[in-house]
Every structure is written in structure tokens, then in C-alpha cells.
């Protein structure tokens, strides 16, 4: 059985009278990509700052690699890399200088600087000032910073925030390669799709409290049905065909598309039947009902 390398115990933090993290308990085991999910303002970033000892908890503690952060800060953070929200740098210095500064702090070696710049594909721009970098390049450099000292636990807070699709893809690939290299990844996000694609385990928090946690596939099983949008022509014939299928349920029909409920396993069959019936299918857009599940768990009662 894998070892628990990150344990959050009864963690509580308030700012003035507002409880931002409320008696939070979590465990992350070695080797997994752990998704930390919640809507904006749920307390994800505060939790991460508590883990990294950037802010002090009101009560509770965090144990990393068997050491409590409040008592053994330096020892517990020895093997932790982090990228918190938008990567921040000394913008008037080059990427190499920025990394050199972290090496001087006791993390990594000069040779490792080139290695991590290779990993994030910035070696050609290593001697350019960071202020000339695009947002995507800065995020990649942020990951390079976090990788510099060969961490065993990587904490990423909204790493794809503000990135274009190409940048998002690159960051996802980096997360995957970290996982393949045996690094445990703690990925905070408000994007379900991102967590679903990258993570094996996840926890959802809302208003500072843990709502649910478990294996992503187990949580998906709880919400097996998928809402899928089908764009097809002629739309009337497509509706007629779908109505004859007992494994699909029509949700909404519009002029250009049909929204249906279909299980993940039956989605290929639906596509095959439509094509065999001569219907021109221009797009099939699956939308996980995990999103609805997430919303049902985290929706605020404004009434």
C-alpha cells in the first residue's frame, strides 16, 4: 500500500471573522495525481499556502513526509516544489538568473538549471529577461522553478490559469511527465475537465470545508450518465433515430443540436448508429455530468 506523504489534519484558518479553511482533513498518497477541486473562493489557495507555511493556521497542522510543517518547516518542505497561481519572477533578471537565485537558496545545482529548462522547453530563451516572456512561458518557467530541486511532491495551484489551449496542453503534458517520473502531484483547480483529465484521486472543497473525496473513477461512477451534445443534419431524422434507441435519452432539441443523456460506454454505439443511418454528424461534444455533480455539491444557496 502506498504511503501517505501529505496529511492535512483539522486545518482551520480565518481572516478577520471569515473562516476560509474550516477543519479540513485530507490525505495524499505517494505517486498519485491528486485533484483539489473547488469553485473560486472555496479556500484552495489558502489551503495551499497553509501547506507551504506561507501563512500560519489558526489550528490544525500539515504533515509532509512525516514532518509537521508548523514544527519542522524546513525539513517538511525539503522535497516539495510549488507553483502557486500565476508564476512570479524577478522580471528584470533572466530565466537562468531567476533559477540561480533558487539554487543559491539551497535547491538544485547549476547543471540542474539546464535540465529543467530543457524539460519546460525554455533552454533557447534561458538568457532572456523574464519580462520578455509570454504568459505561457512564465508558467512553464514557474514549473521549472518548482522542479529545480527534484521534489517528490509537486503542488500546483491553478497552473493553467490564463493560458491559451496550446499552453494548457503543454502544462498538462508536463504534469503527466512528472507523474510518470514518480512525482506525487497535488493539483488545485476550479476546472473539472482539468482534474478529470489529469488526476487519479480528487477532493472537492467548498467554503473551506471538504465536500467529498475519493478516486476520480469512483466519483464518476456515481454519476455515470453523460450529457452529450450532437450536431447533426438533418436534425429531425437524427431525433427520430435517437428516439428508437433505448440506451439514449433526449434532453433538449434545438435547431442545430440535440442534447442527450448517454453512458460513457454507449457513446460510441450512438455515433455508429447515427452514421449507419446516413445522418451527417458534424460534432459530438461530451459534457461530463461530473460538472453537474460538482455544481450540486458546491452551489451556494443564495435564496
Amino acid at each position: 500500500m502506498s504511503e501517505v506523504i501529505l496529511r492535512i489534519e483539522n486545518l482551520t484558518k480565518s481572516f478577520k471573522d471569515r473562516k476560509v479553511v474550516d477543519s479540513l482533513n485530507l490525505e495524499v498518497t505517494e505517486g498519485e495525481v491528486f485533484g483539489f477541486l473547488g469553485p473560486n473562493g472555496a479556500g484552495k489557495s489558502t489551503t495551499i499556502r497553509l501547506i507551504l507555511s506561507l501563512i500560519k493556521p489558526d489550528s490544525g497542522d500539515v504533515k509532509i513526509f512525516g514532518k509537521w510543517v508548523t514544527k519542522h518547516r524546513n525539513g517538511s518542505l525539503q522535497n516539495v516544489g510549488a507553483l502557486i497561481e500565476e508564476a512570479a519572477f524577478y522580471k528584470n533578471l533572466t530565466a537562468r538568473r531567476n533559477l540561480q537565485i533558487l539554487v543559491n537558496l539551497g535547491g538544485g545545482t547549476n547543471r540542474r538549471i539546464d535540465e529543467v529548462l530543457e524539460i519546460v522547453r525554455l533552454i533557447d530563451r534561458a538568457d532572456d529577461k523574464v519580462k520578455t516572456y509570454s504568459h505561457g512561458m512564465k508558467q512553464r518557467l514557474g514549473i521549472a522553478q518548482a522542479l529545480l530541486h527534484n521534489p517528490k511532491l509537486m503542488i500546483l495551484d491553478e497552473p493553467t490559469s490564463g493560458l491559451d489551449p496550446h499552453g494548457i496542453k503543454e502544462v498538462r503534458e508536463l504534469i503527466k511527465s512528472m507523474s510518470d517520473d514518480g512525482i506525487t502531484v497535488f493539483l488545485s483547480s476550479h476546472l473539472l475537465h482539468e482534474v478529470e483529465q489529469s488526476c487519479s484521486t480528487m477532493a472537492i472543497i467548498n467554503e473551506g470545508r471538504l465536500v467529498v473525496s475519493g478516486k476520480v473513477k469512483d466519483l464518476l461512477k456515481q454519476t455515470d450518465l453523460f450529457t452529450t451534445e450532437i450536431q447533426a443534419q438533418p436534425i429531425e431524422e437524427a431525433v427520430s433515430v435517437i428516439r428508437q434507441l433505448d440506451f439514449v435519452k433526449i434532453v433538449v432539441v434545438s435547431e442545430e443540436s440535440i442534447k442527450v443523456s448517454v453512458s460513457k460506454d454507449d457513446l460510441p454505439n450512438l455515433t455508429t448508429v447515427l452514421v449507419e443511418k446516413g445522418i451527417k454528424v458534424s460534432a459530438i461534444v461530451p459534457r461530463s455530468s461530473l460538472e453537474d455533480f460538482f455544481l450540486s455539491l458546491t452551489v451556494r444557496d443564495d435564496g
Partner: protein
Amino acid sequence: MMWRLVKNELIKISGKRRSFIGFIVIGILMPLILWGFKVGGSQVYREITEQLQENFIVVGSVFNGFLATYIVMNFLWVHIPFLITLVAGDIVAGEGSAGTFRIYLTRPVSRGKILLSKLLATYIYTAALIIFFAIMSLGLGSLWLGTGDLIVFHKGILILPSEIAWMRFALSFIFSIGVMLVVASLCFMFSTMVNNGIGPIIGAMAVIFVGLAVSNLPLDFFEKIRPYFFTTYIDIWKEAFYDPIPWREIGKSILILVIYTAGFLGVSFAVFSRKDILT
């Protein structure tokens, strides 16, 4: 380890344009002033020797690089703190506003060591700026205007021979560095309290201006509290030119400045060790 941390801070300081403002201002202003002395020096010379010639026979020129430096120090001394605060105010708060602390403080190095390294870098910068000021005033002044006896006015006219004047200037600049370290410590303290680089500069300058008012305005109430203000001792550098050097008063002044510095630093470390990094 500490040297590597200090080196980091010096790299960061060197990467900011504001770090060079003090050097640029002194580098431009001093040659201009000295050039002004050189071309218009005869008028200054006449004004100085007018009083002297009533009682003394003046042989040669008393207007030289030493006197020019002494005059410049008197004029510019209250402006130097502003140049120091440009860096001292930004060194902690600047990282807060840029968000770089959220990576820098997640590495396994204690906050105390990081703050100490920032303090040492601030002190190195402060000392470097004063040394540069010394080079540009005394060094350049001596080259351009020559050296000779130094005339200072303290409880009458005091003439310091050339060989003693060198030592007095050295002592004076050492005192200057010490006083500016107190100013740097004050601004450093404000820098630990906020997350923008402007607030600490304004805060430190406000304290200095109020303090200088208390220290210099001839009001009875101010007389009583004056000895407890560190600004009362900000021109301790002048005492290096008195004869004899008032070591007892200087020692007392240094003690008060050290107590103030310890207070500023105590607050700095207490604030920074408890500070939540939210940016």
C-alpha cells in the same frame, strides 16, 4: 549559506533600476557642483577669506577639495536618506507586491535567515552609496580643486591641517555610514509591514522630517524630547571635525542610534516571522 543568500539579494538589487538612482544622482550632481566651485570658486573664496583676513594673514588657497566636500556634505546630508530608502523600502515590500515571496519562502530556509540576508544586503548597498559619495566628493574634489588645510566653523574658526583633514574625513564618512544604517533600518522595518515599495519610503521620510523638525526647531517642548529622537544625532558626522573630537558625546550618540536600530530590527523580525504571505 548566508553569503549565498546575501548574494541573491545583491543580484535582485542590481536588477532594479531604482537601485542606480542614488549612484546616478551623486554621479551627476557631484561633478557639477565641483565644476561650479572650480569656475566660481573665487567668489566663494573671497566670502570665506573676507572674515579670515580681518584677523589672519592667509597664504595660498584655503578653498580646496576638502572645503568643497565639507560644504557639499552640509548641503546634501538631509537628502541622502531619500536615496537610501529607495532600496531599503523595496527590499522586502517589493517581493510582496511582485508575488515572488510565494516561491522564495517555500524553500527550506528560515524566514529569519532570509530577512537577515535582506538586511545585510541593504546595509551593503547603503555603505556602497556613502563610499561612492565619498569618492565623488572628496576623491574628485581633491583631484580637481587640490588639497590643503580645511577650515571649519564650530564655535569659531577651526583650521585642520591637510594630513589631519584626511583622517577626519575618513572618520566622518564612517559616522555617516553608521547614521545611514539607522535610516535604512527604519525604512527596512516599514518594508516588512506592507506589500508596496512606496509606503515604506514615505513612512521613513515622514519620520525623518518630523524628527528633524523636533531636533532643530528652537521650541521649549522640543528641547525636552530632543535627546530621545534619533534624528538629533543624524549629523554626528560633523563631530569628526571638532577639535578635540568629542568622543564622549559621540559614544552617547552611537549608543542611542544602536538602541534605535535594535528596536527597528526587533520589530522587523517579529513582523516578518508572523507575516501571512497572501500576494
